[in-house]
């Protein structure tokens, strides 16, 4: 069954083109410090997108994303530096390896229902962070790993901040489009069916355990790829980066943007990433107001910015044509 073919909305096309133009001209508009901020933000977007898939689509709350992000980063560093394999292979291995790890762990964790998966994910996060800190042969222990080489493909080396920007942005766009595609696929629908009504989903032939594990596996792939990008960009990995606090940040970002569409993840990530930079001079008070802002946002609009925007849009539309809102 295919959705009826919808003509491309010209407004949408113009909007997308504009957005793309802005994103692509950012390296021209900012200094290298801000460009680094943007690079990290796009990488973070991948992790937060994974939160969209797992929480927004499949309804499962995990706090392990930053840990999986770290797994991807350390896999990359080891593959490139110890095995000397090409970076592209490392990127793929980081994505697939982390995805496989998450998928297998998902099988164990999702045998537990409700809260228990969230508990287990907090446990996983803590254990992974402990391993990053102490497993010296793989992670360099407390000293971390430094001098991870930049990404390169043949003679083409991504070693400037600007080149990294386009490289990371490209990966982000691919991931974003794939997730959009996922939304309209049977797999994506089975995620949403589980989120909305697990018993109905089962009665429609959807295997909860397998499907949730796949969702967690996709989370792993996205975070693993993000980890690889981070390793190539930063060149230095420390256990202090891949923390539980970072995972809570991802959750806050996706909730700020809204979980009803992937764009919510991007909006939330960008707002928080940039806010943190712009208010750096006021750092002393800012964290306090940041916390206050989160509480306020949840009270005023628990569906995030997207939810708020939708509510406004519907209000405006129903005022425009009050009679035709309910189809009979």
């Amino acid at each position, binding site marked *: 069954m295919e959705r009826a073919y919808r003509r491309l909305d010209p407004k949408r096309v113009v909007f997308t083109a504009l957005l793309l133009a802005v994103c692509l001209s950012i390296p021209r508009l900012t200094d290298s410090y801000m460009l680094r901020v943007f690079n990290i933000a796009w990488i973070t977007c991948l992790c937060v997108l994974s939160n969209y898939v797992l*929480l927004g689509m499949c309804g499962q*709350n995990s706090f392990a994303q930053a840990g999986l992000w770290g797994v991807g980063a350390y896999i990359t560093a080891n593959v490139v530096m110890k095995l000397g394999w090409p970076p592209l292979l490392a990127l793929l291995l980081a994505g697939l390896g982390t995805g496989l790890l998450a998928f297998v762990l998902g099988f*164990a*964790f999702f*045998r*537990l*229902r*409700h*809260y*228990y998966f*969230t*508990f*287990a994910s*907090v*446990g*996983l996060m*803590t*254990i992974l962070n*402990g*391993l990053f*800190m*102490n497993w010296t042969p793989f992670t360099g222990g407390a000293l971390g790993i430094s001098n991870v080489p930049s990404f390169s493909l043949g003679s083409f080396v991504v070693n400037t901040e600007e080149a990294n920007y386009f490289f990371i942005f490209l990966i982000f766009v691919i991931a974003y489009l794939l997730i959009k595609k996922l939304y309209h696929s049977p797999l994506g629908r089975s995620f949403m069916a589980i989120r909305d009504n697990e*018993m109905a989903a089962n009665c429609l032939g959807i295997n909860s355990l397998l499907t949730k594990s796949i969702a967690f596996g996709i989370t792993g792939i996205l975070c693993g790829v993000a980890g690889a990008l981070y390793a190539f960009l930063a060149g230095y990995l420390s256990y202090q980066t891949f923390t*539980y*606090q970072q995972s*809570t940040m991802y*959750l*806050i970002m996706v*909730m700020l943007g809204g979980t009803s569409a992937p764009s919510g993840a991007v909006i939330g990530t960008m707002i928080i990433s940039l806010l943190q930079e712009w208010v750096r001079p006021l750092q*002393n*008070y800012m*964290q*306090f107001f*940041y*916390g*206050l*802002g*989160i*509480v306020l*946002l*949840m*009270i005023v609009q*628990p569906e995030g910015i997207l939810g708020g925007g939708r509510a406004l849009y519907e209000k405006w539309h129903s005022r425009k044509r009050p009679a035709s809102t309910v189809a009979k």
Partner: protein
Amino acid sequence: MNLQLLVSGIAMGFIYAMVSMGMVLIFRAVNIVNFAQGEFLMFGGYLCYMFNRQLHLPIVPALLLAALAMGVVGVIFMFTSYWPLRNAQIRAIVVSAMGASIVFKEGARLIWGSIPVTVDRVVKGTAVIANTAVVQWQNIAIIGISFILILFVYLLLERTFIGHIMQATAQDRYMASLVGIPVVFSIALTFALSAMLTGIGGGLLAPLFFLNNTMGYTTNAKAFAAVVIGGFGSVPGAVIGGLLVGLIEAFGGAYISTTYQLVIIYVVLVFFLMFRPQGIFGTRIQEKA
């Protein structure tokens, strides 16, 4: 068996028991895992520091005042971070509690600075037990005071009218409101009790470990593990779980590695989740058909 380690493990266990019991009280009342429970411990400790070191009160009245103040903090927390969201999705409440924990953490930093602080001991000095083990009196005091407080809260819940009101609200809010129980009051009381119990823990802990504004997270993580290990929603489970976590931490730190302390606790937690998800005391969270 290292007696010294045993006593300090049990003492820490009782602190965790107070935090996890506070967490369970809130969970039973409103079905929400409070991700800011550890901050109650931190904030309670700082309030105790304020009364004890800044206002120069003796430690016992300082502890009592801190507990009272924490009761107020708990009620404020309830009305700002939970009550407006009571009908929203659980994840929104989780995030709001996370926001609140940032507010606690940063608030404490803005008020008291980021230099670690301490308070007076309830009982000074050390005791020699069984001729070999040197035990700090504060540890014994923690065990004694916590035990009494936990017992007190438990009896309050199980044996008194107000406890029954709170339990009725926890079980079925709608029915409770139908039979004339002031639901808001009952929930606020639960939050206050939870914050007081956990807050005193901060004041008791401060002489042993310096207080700092970021201690809430690790405390929360350990209390959380304790709650799951003990059995979610079970008050005795939270206490036993807390004690277990304290002991695992003490002995794991001494015999395996201090850097792996939290990891060991969480390996035990994941082990429990895999093979006995209902924990020691809990019943499985049932799915409604």
